[in-house]
């Protein structure tokens, strides 16, 4: 799992999982909060397909945080108003980057989250797949 995938997995993980792991990591990890946690907005943009024209579609409420553990930065952005979750995710990012003793455990937990995300996508498709249809002429 690379760092970008880690951000994705942490954004989808439950608050409880991330906060529980971060609390344990902080027992032996010194971090300095350098950004946030800040509740704010990300403007979601879309591309109109005929002119390939980008436009501002809708704003999304997010929470962002960044910490420093020694020389390693830890960053997180999650959807919604979740300061505790964003801060915990930033701590975990820094913990993995600094090869903290819990790094493997954190990565394993996030791989499970990632696997759950894929399963959820599959399940959503599986629910609608039987509604695939071919319309025939009624002649």
């Amino acid at each position: 799992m690379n760092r970008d995938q880690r951000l994705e997995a942490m954004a989808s993980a439950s608050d409880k999982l991330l906060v529980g792991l971060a609390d344990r990591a902080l027992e032996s990890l010194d971090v300095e909060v350098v950004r946030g946690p800040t509740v704010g907005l990300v403007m979601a943009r879309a591309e109109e397909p005929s002119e390939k024209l980008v436009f501002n579609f809708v704003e999304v409420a997010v929470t962002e945080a960044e910490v420093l553990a020694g020389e390693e930065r830890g960053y997180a952005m999650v959807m919604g108003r979740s300061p505790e979750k964003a801060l915990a995710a930033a701590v975990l990012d820094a913990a993995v980057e600094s090869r903290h003793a819990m790094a493997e455990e954190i990565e394993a937990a996030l791989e499970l989250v990632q696997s759950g995300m894929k399963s959820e996508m599959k399940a959503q498709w599986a629910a609608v797949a039987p509604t695939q249809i071919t319309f025939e002429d009624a002649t």
Partner: protein
Amino acid sequence: MYTSVKASLDAIKRAEKLITDDILSVEHPLRAAQIVESLSPLVEKVMAEGSLYDPGLGALAIIQAQGDPIEAAFLLRAYRSTLPRLGYSIPSRSEDVHVLRRISPAFQDVPGGQVLGRTRDYTLRLLDLSLANGASFPAAAGRDSRSSSENHAPPGDAAQATKAPPEFPVVLDYLRKDGYVEEAPAGSGEDEPFDVTTEPLRFPAKRSARLQIMARGEAGALLSLGYAAMRGYGESHAYVSEVRVGSVDVKIRHPITGNPAAIGRIPVTEAHAVFPGKASLNDRRADLTFGYGLTLGGDERKAISMAIVDENLSQRHHAGGLTQDDEFVLQNIDCVESSGFVEHLKMPHYVAFQADMQRTNRITELMKRVGRNGNHR
């Protein structure tokens, strides 16, 4: 003319408290989570028109507004204005939609095929009275007792459920390749999309501004205009080349790696519409024009209406239809603006009305004199 007025602040506070008391004193109060779960079209409408994706806040706004969607959208707009803008997503494209429903009323054998997903489009709208006591739908209750393979007919399709979703190529790309619609003009993309939340709108509006305003426009207003366009107040009848319902990833650029990373998904509905009859040898114009609709959530009605109105506003040669007038359309579809202006009529207008009444009195007096004398000198 507006004028400041003085009144008892206590009475105003008590009037508002009557509403909050009503909300807090209901016997079976709804929780935000229940509303998100049970009334997703309403939550999505409020978020789309409030132009803020956060289902929990959307549901909360609905509770506070006692189910009034325009009031709820207003609350979301007000809330979002208090938050800082932290960044922009990487633009999502049609092919990025995680499709859970895709139909093409124009192309029977559309590449990628059609999947109905969740729809009532082909069945009767009958009120199910058994829901009154919280009973389950009869069909669903029956289905529970059958084996899972019987849940979805016919058996041959069951195998599809275990496969990965197919690719759904964009129909427009085929039409363009075959010369039915114009190529995307080189460099047609505006340098930076217009942002109606930070810049005052000017006319003629840039297309990026039009799309943003329509995406956050009121569904009923867009429906009315889309319908009017087809009834002759525009000059177009649409064919829907495809509708996609699903979700898109919200991808940001990771500030440390610089790579795209998704922070979650938002539900969207996209409508592509084509309009025949626009060929021109003189202008070297292809026959089909294109309209695009995109809305937060699952509102296909709004997405299709938006696609119709988008095409009407994109016409190079106006026939003078109301739905081709960007100022008319864009100034009338925002629910917060339009309701604000209509409802401001409830605010005290004493001075303005007094001035008008003086004029009315003079005219009435004049008419009386004319009536008495036959004519007035």
